[in-house]
């Protein structure tokens, strides 16, 4: 766990194309998958019932897409800080995420631009596990232009 990151605002002026986000690692357990599914009010049995998941051709329960977008937004704002506003996020799922896997989040800045009152940052990111690519995505964040403007 990274301590303190989420209270510090990133200043848009210091962000450069190619900057890498601090990696995030999630050790996936059945508890994490079920907690995410229920917190997002997704009661599809493939996300909490192993025998049901087996009946659908899956070896175990797997993470729901609402949890994927949840973890992705945490990954981005852990880096950008509480003054950032998420404007866009798009993800495409690859190999499902099962208990026992380690999910590794990596991302980089692909573009920056300044508007009248905000600094825009575009990013791409991906999540890999022992099985390969779990998902890929892109995002747009709106960062405060000065540190005093959290």
């Amino acid at each position, binding site marked *: *766990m990274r301590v303190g990151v*989420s*209270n510090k605002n990133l200043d848009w002026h210091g962000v450069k194309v190619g900057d890498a986000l601090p990696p995030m690692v999630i050790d996936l357990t059945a508890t*994490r998958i079920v*907690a*995410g599914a*229920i*917190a*997002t*009010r*997704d*009661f*599809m*049995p*493939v996300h909490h*019932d192993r025998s*049901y998941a087996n*009946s*659908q*051709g*899956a*070896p175990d329960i*797997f993470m*729901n*897409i*609402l*949890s*994927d*977008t*949840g*973890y*992705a*937004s*945490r990954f981005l*704002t*852990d880096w950008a800080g*509480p*003054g950032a*506003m*998420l*404007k*866009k*996020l*798009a*993800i*495409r*799922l*690859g*190999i*499902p995420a*099962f208990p026992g896997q380690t999910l590794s989040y990596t991302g980089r800045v692909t573009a920056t631009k300044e508007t009248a009152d905000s600094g825009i940052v575009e990013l791409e990111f991906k999540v890999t596990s022992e*099985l390969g690519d779990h998902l890929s995505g892109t995002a747009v964040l709106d960062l*405060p232009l000065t540190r005093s*403007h*959290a």
Partner: protein
Amino acid sequence: MPSATRPELASHPPVHESSKDEATRFRATLAGLVGQPVGPAGGSVGPDPVNQAMIRHWVAAFEDRNPVYTDSQVAAASRFGGIVAPPLMLQTWLMATPKITGIAERGGSPVESDGSGPLAVFDEAGFTGTLASNSEFEIERYLHLGETISATTLIESISDEKQTRIGRGYFVTWVTTYLDEALAVVGRQRFRILKFKPGGAVA
């Protein structure tokens, strides 16, 4: 997500005339679904307003320590002026309150349907499995505590039949528009699922 490959009719040996007619009819049925609403006519309304309890549950699940979601003092001093919901909870506010009894028998559908929903044609044709593949959000603004959110959802497109890792199926894309109480758009979401015939392997 399973990778998309060739449509069935292009990749299979010639089929008997009657099953070809059947496939053509099914394809026409699917074409008629594009532009149709998903869910209740007139859209759906979040069963509860944006609230701290559900936000706290959500941020605990993902261990998201962003203080603007739970710390009223930090949030008040931020650009948001007060506690805001995590932006991607947008979809969560509109999730149906599930009827747990019988949910597996309904293929995971949270509520009993009268079988007339636009996606029922897939289940009737044996494409009973559902797997999400893409989710794309555009956020206009963050939501504050007490706001009630509604949404309308329209089917945008349906793919040809595809062979995927987990079986044959169709990718269905819909677009949801999320509205506040003044009917101003607070966000949009494009969501794609695969409706498939279970039998293959997921990984």
